[in-house]
């Protein structure tokens, strides 16, 4: 499903060139559960951004479902993001003025889906993450774990094939963190490709495949 060939991403910081990703090759099959690990500055977040088409590689080719995404223009990339990729962030990134239900509906709003379909799907997903009774709450009325579950429901609303989670438990206590991981793993079990970026070894240990990164290079790639 994912094929990275000679992917590099350089940044200019001051007069220096930082190699956030340095000639990375990687293949991830559909339905895999991958943990990307490494210290900060190892390039794991950059990798995730490139996988989610939020960032463009400086060099190399990224094939997603056989399509070369590096050739796509901004609008086409946005469409791919909307239809194929779901994002989970460490800080949740819910829109504070919208209710849980409206937050979950947002990707479908952007995709011009009809209101009734939107609401039905968002309700179903919120119920699926155990928030049936919190739909009309705003983010500031929800706990951290609940917010992340709203974010998961939002990531799933367009039925993507790929879920990218950047430190999904980083801002949560261990109890809510475990709940969130359980939800993500259940989705993976249903066939979704799940890629989690984390520096928490306990989180990484749960994945079936672990990619360790350092200085923009893949240090080790272990399957369990």
């Amino acid at each position, binding site marked *: 499903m994912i094929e990275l060939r000679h992917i590099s991403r350089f940044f200019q910081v001051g007069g220096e060139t930082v190699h956030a990703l340095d000639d990375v090759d990687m293949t991830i099959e559909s339905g895999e559960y991958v943990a990307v690990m490494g210290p900060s500055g190892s390039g794991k977040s950059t990798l995730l*951004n490139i996988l989610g088409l*939020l960032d463009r590689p400086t060099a190399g080719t990224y094939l997603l479902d056989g399509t070369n995404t590096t050739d796509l223009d901004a609008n086409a990339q*946005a*469409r791919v*993001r909307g239809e194929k990729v779901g994002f989970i*962030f460490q800080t949740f990134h819910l829109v504070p003025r*919208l209710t849980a239900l409206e937050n979950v509906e947002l990707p479908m709003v*952007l*995709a011009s889906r009809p209101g009734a379909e939107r609401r039905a799907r968002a309700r179903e997903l919120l119920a699926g993450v155990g928030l049936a009774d919190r739909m009309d709450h705003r983010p500031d009325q929800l706990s951290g774990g609940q917010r992340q579950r709203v974010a998961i429901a939002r990531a799933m609303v367009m039925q993507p094939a790929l879920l990218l989670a950047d430190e999904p438990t980083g801002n949560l206590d261990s109890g809510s963190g475990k709940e969130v991981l359980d939800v993500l793993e259940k989705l993976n079990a249903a066939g979704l490709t799940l890629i989690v970026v984390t520096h928490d070894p306990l989180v990484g240990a749960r994945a079936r495949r672990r990619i360790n990164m350092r200085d923009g290079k893949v240090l080790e790639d272990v399957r369990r």
Partner: protein
Amino acid sequence: MKAGDLLAFATQSLLRARMRSSMMLLAMAIGVAAVVMLTALGEGARRYVTGEFSALGTNLVVVFPGRTETGGINPGVLGGDTPRDLTIADAESLLRLPTVADAAPIIVGQATISVGRLERDTTLMGGTRSIFAVRRWGVRQGELLPAIRWDQTASVCVIGANLARELFPHMSAVGQWLRVGERRFRVIGIIGSEGRSLGFDVQELILVPVATAEAIYNRTSLFRILVQARSPDEMQRTRTDIVETLKARHQGVEDVTVVTQDALLSTFNAIFTVLTLALGAIATISLLVAGVLVMNVMLVAVSQRTAEIGLMKALGARPGQITRLFLMEAVLLALCGSLIGVTVGELITWAVRKTLPFDAVAPTWAVVFGVVVAIACGLIFGILPARRAARLDPVLALAGKV
């Protein structure tokens, strides 16, 4: 994104940022209210002046000494040297024209009036009995000027109501005597009309027979002749008749200016329409200032909402959608602000109409113009912030590093 969703989303984010939104609404509202009020002022002035000229009387033709090329008033008309005086005999000759219903020769000057030790400077008008008909004046007490020959003097006067009250505070003015310089006049009537016309306050006026005024000022030239035409359809013919008659009397030299009331009205109409336009243009500047403010506040909004913009991009929003979202916010603000502005402006002009004798009404074109310019401002000044939002790098935006 559907239009309805776009509208709902923009409304929600505006309602959320209440302080910011209300400041922008205020700026837009002030701009539009300024357009409404200033043009109402100009329009009010136009109505006032045209009202004054209509109050002069009906079917009026005014004859000035001196020749001007245009139909309007120029400084030469208002008292420059003229080749030949306009005389009482000239005025009388006009009465013989079939198109002329009536004529009233006028002399105007300043005079010091005294009664005992009371002294007062005021405007003295030399006129004839016909002035009452032509100007549609009446007397509230006593009688009109006597029906004497126009070249005959008489030591009588008709005075305005204010003047009568001030000079004869505790008695009826009619029948009393007053002095103009060394001459004594008997008050025979008090003018019943009110208001100003042609720049004189009728209530402050002293009116004496025209030949007497000539004697007071020791001159034989008229200030002007007011002529009433028989029919409003014959204004142009009346005008030509007058010009021909006076030309013949002045050895074939056309040295008078004859202006119909219509021409005067349309001249002043034109002047005041331009004035209203100018006032509207000045007010438009405040709209532009409001537009710049909207741009600044929207730029701040964009930088405050970078994380949200990054998120929208991650959720599949195309750059064009982000642009539309922010433009929609700017236009919504401009629209609501201008509606508030129109309401406030109309309320204030209504209050002015109720409290002052000034018919201030904002012309419809100005109201429409104000709203359209406000919305255009919202669009134009909203483009820069909206495009900046659309161009944000989603990675940096999500990290809050923009």
